[in-house]
């Protein structure tokens, strides 16, 4: 699914989180929103998911206006920064949640749910943890379960908020590769937010560099490294990566 962000602006009470920003995300691409904290990247991601309503502007899914569509109907898989796994449910119940939440008429049979959960657990390379609780998992395992949960409902787009932020460097590298593999296998349009330029550059097809609620530059990683268009982008990518 291709996504268009058309002059989206967002202000909270007295602060402006996003000045009107526009961005076109081609179908099947892996795009990162890169910027320091407070640059509005998470707000933009939440607006795409439908968790936040823009003050003005439109979000288009495959050319159709999706701005007024509820979060449930958008079918955007969202991986939260803190994973937000349901703490009182097992891994199995977590992944099955989106399927079980469907109205009876479209809900898969429990055998079908089991088949899909098992398949997803294999996809994230964690078979055999289905009966554990989130508190019994490591950070990296939780992140992968959150990814599987988001994929279970066959979303139209995958949105990830700082997906590797809370993990140590080695696990992060592993999971980056894992996410790229899953993206390439499913062909799902994927947008992720990060403040880590290494992560953005190594993982995505297209990077949107953000600062102070504006998109400073959009381009391929090579483009942005070679031809930074603003002072901010130049300074930002010259910083040594904080790993």
């Amino acid at each position, binding site marked *: 699914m291709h996504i268009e962000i058309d002059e989206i602006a967002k202000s909270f009470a007295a602060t402006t989180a996003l000045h009107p920003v526009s961005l076109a995300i081609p179908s099947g691409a892996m795009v990162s929103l890169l910027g320091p904290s407070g640059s509005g990247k998470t707000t933009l991601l939440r607006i795409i*998911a*439908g*968790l936040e309503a823009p003050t003005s502007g439109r979000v288009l899914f495959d050319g159709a206006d999706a701005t007024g569509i509820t*979060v*449930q109907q958008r*079918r*955007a*898989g*969202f991986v*939260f920064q*803190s994973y*937000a*796994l*349901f*703490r*009182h449910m097992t891994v199995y119940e977590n992944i099955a*949640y*989106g399927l079980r*939440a*469907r109205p009876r008429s479209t809900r898969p049979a429990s055998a079908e749910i089991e088949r899909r959960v098992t398949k997803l657990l294999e996809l994230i390379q964690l078979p055999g943890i289905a009966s554990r*609780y*989130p*508190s*019994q998992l490591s950070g990296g395992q939780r992140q992968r379960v959150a990814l599987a*949960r*988001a994929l*279970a*409902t066959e979303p139209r787009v995958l949105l990830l908020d700082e997906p590797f932020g809370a993990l140590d460097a080695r696990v992060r590298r592993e999971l980056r590769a894992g996410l790229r593999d899953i993206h390439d296998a499913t062909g799902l349009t994927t947008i992720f937010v990060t403040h880590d330029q290494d992560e953005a550059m190594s993982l995505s097809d297209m990077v949107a560099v953000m600062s102070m609620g504006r998109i400073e530059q959009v381009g391929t990683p090579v483009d942005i490294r070679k031809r930074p268009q603003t002072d901010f982008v130049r300074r930002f990518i010259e910083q040594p990566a904080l790993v």
Partner: protein
Amino acid sequence: MSDIPLYRPADVTTEARPARIVITSVILILTALLLLAPLAAVFAEALRDGLGASLAALNTPDAWAAIRLTLLISVIAVPLNAAIGLAAAWAIAKFDFRGKAILISLIDLPFSVSPVVAGLSLVLLFGSSGWFGAWLSAHDLRVVFAVPGILLATLFVTFPFVARELIPVMSEQGRSEEEAALTLGATGWYMFRTVTLPNVRWALLYGVLLCNARAMGEFGAVAVISGKIRGQTTTMPILIEMLYNEYLSVAAFSMAALLAALALLTLLLKSLMEWRHADLLAATRRH
């Protein structure tokens, strides 16, 4: 190398053995003196003339009326306050709105106002010369010196218990699990049933138990508004006081023992549930 002192983490948080013994004994003695002794005294006094006399004292029409009224009041007040408390805690913990600070202070009001004052203010509002008195008597409704008044007084006094237990738990858990449920396609009601409620069930249970204990035991506010009509508006605590004032100490203490037993029963229920769901409880708390 050998002269580097060994670092033992346990030393940091552990007191010396004598200190530990002293602290533990002080707590145990205080608990026994302040909590266990009065309870034991009530039961001992109730059973002074034997179990038969005690039961006979409870088997009077007035006693049964008081027991029924107390149970009726708590059966209505507790679910009502659980629902209202849950809604208030949800609003406060998960949303930002104007007047939130005022709402929080209002929830605490029943804790800071003396129950007697609460009872009096209800009389002022609903009594025959009160604000709504004329309207009520015109429609042939009785609040003061009747069951609705007792219910209102109990609702007022027990209002904070559930909300107070839930607000810190809900604030700490934040909104992200609920947002996750919504992105997975859950409707608001499905999300509430499967995520919000299970996440606070222990705090809710605890709040409900405290609320219930207070609803059954409330004296001050009920004493003012009930008019103490024997057999009609006397709850168990009111009847206990009346019996005691009439020097019917076996009857008074038997009723007191029964009230205490009801409270102990709710406590037992809670422990039983915690024990049965120990695994899940540990899992959810550690996360």
